[in-house]
């Protein structure tokens, strides 16, 4: 399709945003969906529409992983090789695909059927090892299941649009309540009719008809709801920072840029309970006086975005969004904004920069978003899960929510258990649940192996050894244990795990995903990865271990956002807690271990 034929659709996209430049990512998506890649002509076209120089368009295109500047295959197969997938055999999966397609990652088959890409965590670790074929997630594909992988490859080579043998899997492996996951298991319970039949939107109705914004904030504060994106900041307190005397527009932005390796909970909410998110947004927007909300969804989440859009359309149709909601006089517009492949955009200020049409660069603070956020206006950014807790709090009262948790953190969390467990999945539990209990809920360590270590809160969190897991999973208990609750991504490693290779995987992730803005992070993440990679190649020295600890220490606390700190923590905790293993590896390389057998290939890390 020619660019001129896209102008009407571009016009519709532009109307969704207060400032034209904010339409950058969706316009680039529009071009890529229709032309397969973003050509120089398209960059110029987008720049013209947005009033932005072509250089700045190219900056954006080159920053995000999902945009192609050159023609690619008719399909794209993205294979995740992030830590949770590697623990379950991603390297073997990628190797099979490579040898079958006879291309390496970054290359396209000679017939232009498919482009193979190696990607960082797609946040579907419950189906690890997994891949993404065009828009859909597919998996698991353990490397020993040759036939299943061959089916995937046949799908990848087929013409887009034909019948395919690898659907996106359902149902999910997950828990059933009490707060966030009550609707996950029932595929018929997702949409508005079923949601309202179960009492959905009653909290929103109560709020709109009988409560002041201040009362709502007070209720959420009383519930001890903490920010579940990872930082754990009290949500009600955050809302209270919005200036009430300002005439400027206020924005609610929902962070659905789920990207922390080992985390996949927001996807469940988006797909299986989108109205809980929308009802929570309605309440939050009312509390902070916002009439425009954006949901920033990571670019790889196609089906979650489609399902949320369907729920949004339903809500508009039934008067739960739009003008004069349910006759209350309150207005709220909701717009989905697609990301394009950059982990850093999950950082709240990077998310805002990205939403405004820039590269995902975190912003200097002060000012904080509550004072000057999106388009320079007061803005609250909350994670999907945080917002999804809000209807429960307003429906059942702050006390009911807070008493589920600990003294400083109310409620439950969706814990994402991945790695070497029997049943990886999303398990909701009170935040006081212990890490050991969670591993057991997921069926314990698979194949009767012994537990070696667990990462309790996504790949950034400091690792805990097998005898450190009797710790409650709330923010404060895990901080006390020297780690963090983070995003709730629990990555389980059994005795066969090689910590050096696990660290290499984490270090590669941070080197890939650093935005490159601050020098300690830009240079430090790459430096760390090169050293660890060199060690895995058998060229390590004992000095490297001390250097790594020193470099990690130098990276901490010196950057605009905490990405560099997050990159430092795995280095520090893996080396400190498994120093003997690192030294043994440096001394003997992998030679002390058995050669890769078919079985090892399933679990090469």
């Amino acid at each position, binding site marked *: 399709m020619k660019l001129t034929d896209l102008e009407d659709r571009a016009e519709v996209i532009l109307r969704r945003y207060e400032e034209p430049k904010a339409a950058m990512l969706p316009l680039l998506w529009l071009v890529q969906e229709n032309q397969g890649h973003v050509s120089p002509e398209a960059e110029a076209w987008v720049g013209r529409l947005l009033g932005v120089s072509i250089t*700045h368009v190219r900056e954006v295109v080159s920053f995000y992983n999902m945009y192609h500047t050159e023609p690619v295959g008719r399909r794209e197969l993205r294979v995740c090789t992030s830590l949770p997938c590697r623990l379950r055999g991603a390297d073997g999966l990628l190797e099979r695909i490579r040898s079958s397609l006879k291309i390496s990652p970054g290359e396209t088959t000679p017939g232009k059927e498919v482009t193979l890409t190696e990607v960082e965590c797609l946040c579907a670790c419950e189906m690890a090892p997994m891949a993404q074929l065009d828009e859909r997630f597919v998996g698991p594909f353990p490397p020993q299941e040759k036939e299943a992988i061959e089916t995937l490859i046949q799908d990848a080579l087929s013409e887009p649009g034909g019948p395919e043998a690898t659907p996106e899997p359902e149902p999910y492996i997950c828990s059933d309540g009490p707060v966030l996951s009550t609707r996950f298991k029932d595929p018929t319970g997702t949409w508005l009719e079923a949601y309202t039949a179960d009492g959905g939107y009653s909290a929103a109705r109560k709020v709109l008809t009988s409560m002041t914004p201040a009362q709502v904030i007070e209720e959420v504060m009383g519930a001890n709801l903490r920010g579940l994106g990872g930082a754990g900041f009290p949500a009600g307190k955050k809302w209270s920072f919005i200036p009430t005397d300002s005439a400027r527009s206020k924005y609610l932005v929902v962070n659905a840029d789920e990207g922390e390796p080992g985390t996949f909970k927001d996807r469940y909410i988006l797909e299986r309970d989108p109205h809980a998110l929308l009802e929570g947004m309605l309440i939050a927007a009312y509390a902070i006086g916002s009439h425009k909300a954006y949901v920033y969804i990571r670019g790889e989440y196609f089906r979650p975005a489609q399902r949320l859009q369907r729920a949004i359309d339903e809500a508009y149709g039934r008067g739960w969004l739009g003008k004069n909601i349910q006759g209350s006089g309150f207005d709220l517009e909701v717009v989905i904004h697609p990301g394009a492949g950059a982990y850093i955009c999950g950082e709240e200020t990077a998310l805002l920069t990205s939403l405004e049409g820039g590269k995902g660069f975190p912003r200097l603070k002060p000012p904080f978003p509550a004072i000057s956020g999106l388009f320079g206006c007061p803005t609250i950014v909350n994670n999907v899960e945080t917002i999804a807790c809000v209807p429960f709090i307003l429906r059942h009262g702050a006390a009911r929510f807070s008493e589920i948790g600990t003294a400083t953190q109310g409620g439950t969390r969706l814990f994402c258990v991945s790695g070497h467990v029997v049943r990886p999945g999303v398990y909701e539990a009170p935040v006081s649940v212990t890490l050991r209990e969670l591993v057991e809920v997921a069926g314990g360590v698979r194949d009767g192996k012994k537990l070696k270590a667990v990462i309790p809160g996504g790949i950034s969190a400091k690792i805990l050894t097998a005898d450190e897991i009797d710790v409650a999973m709330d923010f404060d208990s895990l901080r006390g244990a020297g780690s963090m609750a983070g995003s709730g991504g629990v990555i389980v490693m059994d005795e066969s795990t090689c910590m050096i290779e696990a660290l290499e995987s984490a270090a590669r992730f941070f*080197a890939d995903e650093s935005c490159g803005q601050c020098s300690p992070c830009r240079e430090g993440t*790459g430096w760390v990865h090169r050293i660890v990679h060199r060690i895995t190649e058998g060229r390590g020295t004992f000095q490297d271990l001390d250097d790594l600890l020193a470099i990690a220490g130098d990276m901490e606390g010196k950057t605009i956002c905490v990405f560099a700190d997050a990159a430092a923590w795995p280095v520090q905790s893996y080396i400190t807690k498994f120093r003997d293993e690192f030294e043994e590896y440096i001394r003997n390389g992998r030679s002390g271990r058995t050669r890769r057998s078919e079985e090892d290939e399933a679990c090469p890390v």
Partner: protein
Amino acid sequence: MPSLTIDGREVSVPKGTTVIQAAEKMGVFIPRYCYHPGLSVAGNCRICLVEVENLPKLQVACNLPVTEGMVVHTGSEQAEDGRRAVLEFLLANHPLDCPVCDQSGECDLQNFYMNFGLYDPRFREQKVKKQKAVQLGPHVMLDQERCILCSRCVRFTDEITKTGEIGIFQRGDRAKIGVYPGTELENPYSANVVDICPVGALTERAFRFKARVWYLSSAQTVCNGCSQGCNMDMHYVLDRPHLNEGARVVRVKPRYNPDVNQWWLCDEGRYGLEWIDKARLQEVRGPGDTANADTNSGKATWEQALGAISKSLAEWKAEDVGARIGVIASAKLTNEELFLIREIFRDALGAQVSAWVPEDPGTCDEFLVKADKNPNTRGATLLNLTSPDAPEAERIVDEALAGNIDLLWVFGYDLVEGFGEQKVRELGEKLKLFVYSGTNENPTQALAHWGLPSAAYVEKDGTFVNHHGRVQRIGRVFSPLGDSREDWRILLELGGLLGLQLDWRDPQEIFLGLADAETAFAGMSYGTIGDQGVEVACTKPTEGVTAPW
């Protein structure tokens, strides 16, 4: 006015001041790469980390607003360790090719390593490879490997020129600056990115591999390329002529002046200075002993020239026909010289004097570049040497052609360009005395009876008044080339030969005389003008141009 303590000393600064500014105010230099006072705060290089009591982490001084009672340590062990760490990161992938880098000697990586680093490097990995020797545009070269991604150049093209040519592509340690493929950095201010680049990533094509910076001498001056009068430092070599093919001027750098050019220079001004060393008029040319009196085919001495000219002038004065003398001065001359011309020619001899020459307006914009390419039109106006206080040059030429003027002296202006060769040739034949004084060879000087070599403006002291009414000193950079002499010196000697009582010995004294005579300059001296200039009493711009700040 919050008060804070920096390194044990208390200081009060206006609300909204950042720690880096407050420290600077009290003479404490906090190192910086990305911070530039003329650009927005980026906060990405992290070298300005300071310790602030009661804050858990080190803070970047560039983005930290001062608060009452804040206690800052810039030299504590924690702060120094932070800077050391940041430097080590910045240098990790840096190629360390100082021996072949033009920035060497004025590089903040080198400087800060010596001042704040001095660690034992630990980086032993393969460095990230990026592009080297990329020609970004007509004036600027890029070395991506040397770049520390401070984004100053990006912010310059976004915020100052608003052209947006430079960007940072990709991310992580693959990030690199550049322009969009197939485009060039060619805005009228492009070379400023070289000045603000704190390292050797952006260098000047014109200066490429020309000289080590420590061989350069520097002197303050102003640009004479247009009526803006941008302040600049001229970098030159006298003792190593091989470095620059014999030319003395190697490059210029903008000199900060908040009221004129802030930190910037236009490319037109920056690269418009070749004439100072090229095709200069270096010897006195006159009719000679026997040759045709109508051309200056012969070499002469200053004594011969000024003797002959003053003799003619004295004759006309004695006959009380001063009005038959014409002088076409120039708005490229200094106030001091214009004042002497006025004193000698207009007031003492009664000549017709004009500094109002026909010129097509040049390029201009709403920033620094002015259409009037003369540095001192405002000064000439304040001295009543332009229309309507003085005749236009065209009228003097017409009068001369009509036979009403016998003696004509042209200062610097190329009559051939303004009036055509035919008319000037005619003048040469008609006039009894036709003197041209100027800095460079040109057709007018070839047709005059006498060609007097003048010093270039950077070879003399003096003042200009810019379009906004700011009196600024030129500042003599080096001596006049060859036999050339400063116009003020020529005029003083001439006055002496004419027996006039001119009690001044140098531009400084002439200026005091001028300040006595003209109310616009009343009370000024070189001392009060200083190196940033002062506004004249009434300030009305000659062009309706406002700078964006």
